[in-house]
Structure formats: structure tokens, C-alpha cells
């Protein structure tokens, strides 16, 4: 019975350490995804530091697995908590970066399309504009009859 309990305990620890290792990789992948979505290095740096702390806890758990199972468990769970938090934060940062990136791209292409429309209008309406300007110039210019000019 005691042997069975010990086996169960060892298995639980191994499970916690395996979960900690898997969660570290999941968090790492979340950071990479956030980076691809446009999150900045400055925003991601605190998450990478947290992930390194989680890695430290996981390494401690692995070292303590045989000597001190309770401490190993505690370290593994600390690592899992930190990694889960990093994954969540990275996803949030990634989503925010993607939304902002989509907005920026949409704005830039709208400006480009607006400029194209204005340029096309300017070219098409250029002759009419030229005619209008000429007309205005003619109206403004004072036309004096030739006789009056000579009489003076």
C-alpha cells in the first residue's frame, strides 16, 4: 500500500514537471506568435524575463525531484503559473498588436487610394480648370477700344 502511494506521488511529480516543461514551450510559442503579430521587443522583454524565471523554477523542480518531492512540486507549480501567465499576456499583446497593425495598414491604403482618386481627378479635370483660369484672366483684363486710346 505504501509502495503504491509512493509510486503515485512520484508519478504526480513527474506529471507536474512534464506539465511545467510543456507550459514553458507553449509560452515560448505564444511569445513568438505575438512577435509575428507585431508586438514590440520592448513589450515582450518583461515576458521573456518571466519565462526565464519559470525556467529556473522548472530546473529546480527537476533537480529536487528525487531529494525533496514537496519542494519539487512547489517549484513545478510556480513554473506552471508563471508560464500560463506569460502565455496569456503574450496572446493579449499579440492581439493588440495585430489590431493596431490592421488599423495602420487600412489607414495607409485609404490614404493611398484617396491620393490616387485626387490625382486622377486632377488629370481629368485639368483642361477644364485651365479654361476656367483663362476665362477669369480675360474677364479681369481691361479691354480698351482703339479709338479712345488714339484720342488720348
Amino acid at each position, binding site marked *: 500500500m505504501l509502495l503504491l502511494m509512493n509510486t503515485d506521488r512520484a508519478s504526480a511529480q513527474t506529471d507536474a514537471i512534464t506539465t511545467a516543461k510543456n507550459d514553458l514551450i507553449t509560452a515560448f510559442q505564444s511569445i513568438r506568435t505575438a512577435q*509575428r503579430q507585431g508586438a514590440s521587443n520592448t513589450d515582450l*522583454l518583461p515576458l521573456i524575463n518571466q519565462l*526565464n524565471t519559470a525556467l529556473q523554477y522548472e530546473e529546480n523542480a527537476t533537480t529536487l525531484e528525487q531529494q525533496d518531492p514537496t519542494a519539487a512540486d512547489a517549484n513545478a507549480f510556480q513554473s506552471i503559473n508563471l508560464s500560463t501567465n506569460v502565455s496569456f499576456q503574450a496572446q493579449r499583446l499579440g492581439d493588440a498588436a495585430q489590431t493596431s497593425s490592421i488599423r495602420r495598414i487600412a489607414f*495607409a491604403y485609404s490614404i493611398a487610394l484617396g491620393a490616387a482618386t485626387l490625382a486622377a481627378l486632377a488629370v481629368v479635370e485639368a483642361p477644364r480648370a485651365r479654361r476656367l483660369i483663362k476665362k477669369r484672366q480675360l474677364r479681369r483684363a481691361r479691354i480698351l477700344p482703339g479709338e479712345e486710346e488714339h484720342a488720348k
Partner: protein
Amino acid sequence: MQNKLATFLILLVSFAAIFSSGTYYVLSPRASQQFMAMGVYSRGGFLGYLSPATNSTVTTGRPVNWTISVTNNMGSAEFVMIIVRIANSTLSSSNSTTPSTFPRIVTPERFIGDEDTWSINFTWTLQSATPQQGGTLLNLQVEGEPVVIAGDNFRWIFELWTYDVVCRCFHYGYGPQSASTGVWLQVWFNPSS
């Protein structure tokens, strides 16, 4: 009127193409070479490089403190492992494609952000150097752990390994596993009792 509309549409399409291309160019990320670099530095002024150096004599009992630094410029975060090996003349060193097969002594791991550098201390002490048939027997203390090696032409080998999310494993060098670039350094030393 119809001619005018057709001209307008043709011009609009042409200008839209030109301006969109310009926008795409402006918005595209600039191309940059991806690389990872590794360096070993000595605070005590002792380092032999690619060949046995004149100042590489290590005396017993004196701790040697080195700093290993890894720089990540891959455009994304990297999960890195440094494998430190102790080597003698029996096997070949690492090269740009294949890691060495000498025993691993320490294997520190770390997540490194893009454009970030990781520095780690590496401390070792030569405890004893005993001449014997076919070379010397060395007793070392590396990061608090005892290490024994016999032979001649002693050197430390430092290899950079990176984590591949596809195979979920570390592989030698950086870049995709199928076409990775090996990064390694070796530091020779002459044991002196």
C-alpha cells in the same frame, strides 16, 4: 462624357496601383540578416583561442572565471542552450554542421529576446594534474561539480544549440534544423601543477 469617365477610371486604377505599391514598400519590414553569435570572455585575462596560446597555462587551485555571452538577432525570441564540453586529442572538435561528441559538462538554458544578449558566468578550477602514461590526468571542479579527464591537448568546447518548435527538441546551431548554422568556440589550456 463617357470618354471622360473611361479616362478617369483608367487613371484611377493606374494611380491606385502606383500609390499602393509605394505604401506596400513603406509598410514592409526592412530585410536584415538573421544571426546568433557567441563569445567567451575572461575577467582574469586568460583565454587561448583557436590554437594553443602562450598565455593559456592554468595552475592548480586557482579558479578561472569566464563569461559566455550569446547575442540573438534572429528577429524572434529564441530558446537557447549552451553545451560546454571538455576535450582532449582523442576526438575531433565541432564544426559548422556537426557538434562534437565529447562529454557534456554543463548545459545552461535560457530564453533570449530578439536583439538581446545573454551573459552567463562559467567558473572552473584545475584541482590536480597528474602525469601518467599517454598524457595527464586532470581533476577539475566545474560549476561546483567534479570532472575527470585524461589525455593531452586539453580544451573547452562551447556549442550553441537552439530549440526547434517543430521537432520540440534542441538542435545544434541556429536556423531551421535542416539548414542550421553551427556556432561553436574552443579554448585550449595547458595544465600546470
